[in-house]
């Protein structure tokens, strides 16, 4: 693992939160609701200009959670986008690293997801020392595709997360057997986001179940 030091191109810089204290808190509360009520679609109220390939909800999530204490891994296209790396370095000061295993936060586009087992799942004594994976997806809805159960869900919820590979979907569903180890995911699309912490059980629904 090496810390990459992309140069900050000042021409690529854009503004972050107008009010970092209040806006950071509001986005955290949205994330807290998302994480404590898995599968709930959350719409962020603020609309910010975003750097390069990042969308509004990914950008705000990173602005509110990251700082110099969090190691960040970016998927290849994000990592080669100078507007993304310059702004993350400038606003968050997070060290950007080249090995996903040591990442506190990993940010990926849906079509270039890291292999799930190459992220940090924590240890059985310290399962919290694990990666939070933020995935930018093409579409998010509550259509019946995945059935979600577990803490934070009253009975059951449904969600459709577009753009995930078959390999990743299976790996994510199977990772539940390793609880309390695992990776917590935040899926972002436009200004919407949805979280699936490791405690949420996922079942792929059969197509005919969708009509019921």
């Amino acid at each position, binding site marked *: 693992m090496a810390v990459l030091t992309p140069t900050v191109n000042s021409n690529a810089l854009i503004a972050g939160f107008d009010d970092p204290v209040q806006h950071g808190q509001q986005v955290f509360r949205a994330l807290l609701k998302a994480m404590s009520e898995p599968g709930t679609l959350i719409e962020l109220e603020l609309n910010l200009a975003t750097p390069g390939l990042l969308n509004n909800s990914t950008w705000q999530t990173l602005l509110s959670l990251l700082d110099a204490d969090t190691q960040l891994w970016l998927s290849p296209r994000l990592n080669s986008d100078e507007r993304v790396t310059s702004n993350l370095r400038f606003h968050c000061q997070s060290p950007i690293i080249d090995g996903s295993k040591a990442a506190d936060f990993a940010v990926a586009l849906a079509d270039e997801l890291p292999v799930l087992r190459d992220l940090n799942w924590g240890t059985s004594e*310290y399962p919290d020392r694990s990666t939070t994976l933020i995935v930018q997806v093409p579409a998010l809805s509550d259509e019946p595709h995945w059935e979600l159960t577990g803490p934070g*869900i009253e009975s059951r919820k449904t969600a459709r997360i577009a753009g995930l590979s078959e390999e990743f979907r299976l790996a994510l569903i199977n990772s539940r057997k390793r609880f309390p180890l695992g990776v917590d995911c935040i899926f972002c699309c436009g200004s919407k986001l949805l979280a699936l912490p490791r405690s949420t059980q996922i079942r792929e629904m059969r197509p005919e179940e969708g009509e019921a």
Partner: protein
Amino acid sequence: MSTATGYNFAYLDEQSKRMIRRAILKAVAIPGYQVPFGGREMPLPHGWGTGGMQVTASVIGEADRLKVIDQGADDTTNAVSIRRFFATTAGVETTESTAAASLIQTRHRIPETPLQADQILIYQVPIPEPLRFIEPRETETRKMHALSEYGAMQVKLYEDVARFGHIATSYDYPVMVNNRYMMDPSPIPKFDNPKMNRMPALQLFGAGFEKRIYAVPPYTEVKSLDFDDYPFEVQRWDENCAICGSDHSFLDEVIIDDAGSKMFVCSDTDYCRSRQTNATESATATEETLS
């Protein structure tokens, strides 16, 4: 707006809040597991709710309405100081009404009025580790949690049964969260334990001394430990509340003179007051109907 100048919103600096926020999100993702965090000094001593205050400071925003209770009461020193602290440093609205609050910081009680979705209950925790009095070494208790090795606690409860004929633990009564982690519910009376089970509100726990945060998401199964032949039971009173007449709330025994006379009153002051108000209103309504 905040009335104190020279302080950040809600006292803590932004980097500390972000660190605590990240710990809270991990705690929510692993229900009942204690996440270590970098505890900060707060302007009051440990043991006065510094853990709960750090969680509150990281969660609270301008739109929140805060209620603080100490043993169920809104008007005791600890509750008044903490409520004033956040009114001053964050300028948020405060309330004594359980139903009107979006955030409730509590020491040793869960309000009698059932909490709703989107409310957050923040507990002040003195000792977060339920196994600490059985196993003093942190390295060992970590391993016990990792392996779900909780037999020692069952033995402790069994010793109660052998010695007293019943489980004598009456507060700080250990629970299993989501059927995986054993959790210390903080020193709430065991009377309150059933309220934690599948509560629609989010429950966050902050221990300032020991620098641990843990959480129970909404609608999560929380089960008090027991035995098939000695099922979990809550306290019961023969008396009713002397003020509102409630026969189902947690009662405090109050000595009222030098002769040792006593009365029993609701520990939850807001609940007791709202019952009195309702009683007065319905009495007035009845009078109006009759006249």
